[in-house]
């Protein structure tokens, strides 16, 4: 593995480890969700070092784009009872201003740095073999070919699985409206009365 690939691996692996520990140890679920987001982003970086370009993109789309957002939505929906019962002391205004200005400085540096660099070259090592095929390993074309050629039926089944999961999630999370609950109780009472009449 080349030096650039090693560096990417070390940075992403370290971030993955630290953010995983933070995810399972932080008290506030919202902070844990943000740590999980960092974990997922660093894993996408690790996939890049393994020449799995499409999988890294899917990781970002599905996990960072959908799963973490779902977690945050549920935390917001549940509200304060998802939070820890004992809140830490609020820190001073000075610290918040310092952190915000630091973040603004870093963001500005990155933005201006990117605007002046022309074609950044990330040195991830090449796989063995001709260059034409090497560019394809783990790419959209090759992986799509593999999925549709070797795993077409499971791919269709995953579509059904996701549909069933959506329906199940809606059905489980929806709950009953007051009208439905009243109708259900009415039906139960009628059934009880019929049973009592049959017993007599």
């Amino acid at each position: 593995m080349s030096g650039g690939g090693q560096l990417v691996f070390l940075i992403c692996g370290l971030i993955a480890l630290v953010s995983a520990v933070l995810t399972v140890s932080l008290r506030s679920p919202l902070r844990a969700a943000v740590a999980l987001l960092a974990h997922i982003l660093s894993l996408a970086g690790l996939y890049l070092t393994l020449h799995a370009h499409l999988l890294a993109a899917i990781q970002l789309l599905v996990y960072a784009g959908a799963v973490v957002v779902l977690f945050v939505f549920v935390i917001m929906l549940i509200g304060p009872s998802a939070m820890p019962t004992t809140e830490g002391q609020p820190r001073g205004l000075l610290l918040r201003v310092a952190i915000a200005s630091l973040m603004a400085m870093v963001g500005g540096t990155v933005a201006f740095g990117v605007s002046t660099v022309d074609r950044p070259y990330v040195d991830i090592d090449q796989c063995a073999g001709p260059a034409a095929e090497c560019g394809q390993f783990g790419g959209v074309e090759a992986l799509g070919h593999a999925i549709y050629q070797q795993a077409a039926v499971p791919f269709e089944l995953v579509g059904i699985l996701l549909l069933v999961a959506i329906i199940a999630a809606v059905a489980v999370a929806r709950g009953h409206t007051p009208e439905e609950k009243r109708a259900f109780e009415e039906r139960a009472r009628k059934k009880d009365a019929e049973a009592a009449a049959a017993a007599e």
Partner: protein
Amino acid sequence: MEIGLGTYLALASVLFGIGAIGFLTRRNTLLQLMSIEIMLNSVNLTLVAFNRWSPGEAGAWSHQGQVFAFFVIAVAAAEAAVGLAILISLFRLRKSVESDRADLLKH
């Protein structure tokens, strides 16, 4: 320092351990679901690493590990959706997301 297949597998096993410890020690159902996601992601990392070190011949690449990881991601997304729906349902019932409070079948 040479980074090979073993390095990736070691990292993935440590991540899986962290996820397992989180799942077993935390009592907040949200954090338990997040720990499950960490464990699934670590398994995906091993699959992709194995695929990288046995990629087949040039021109006929084998992507079996990546295809498998793709399906794991899809199933994990479905799992997260259903798990969070159950969590909301439990919260309606118990006004709490602690897994210790889900004891309706216990008594």
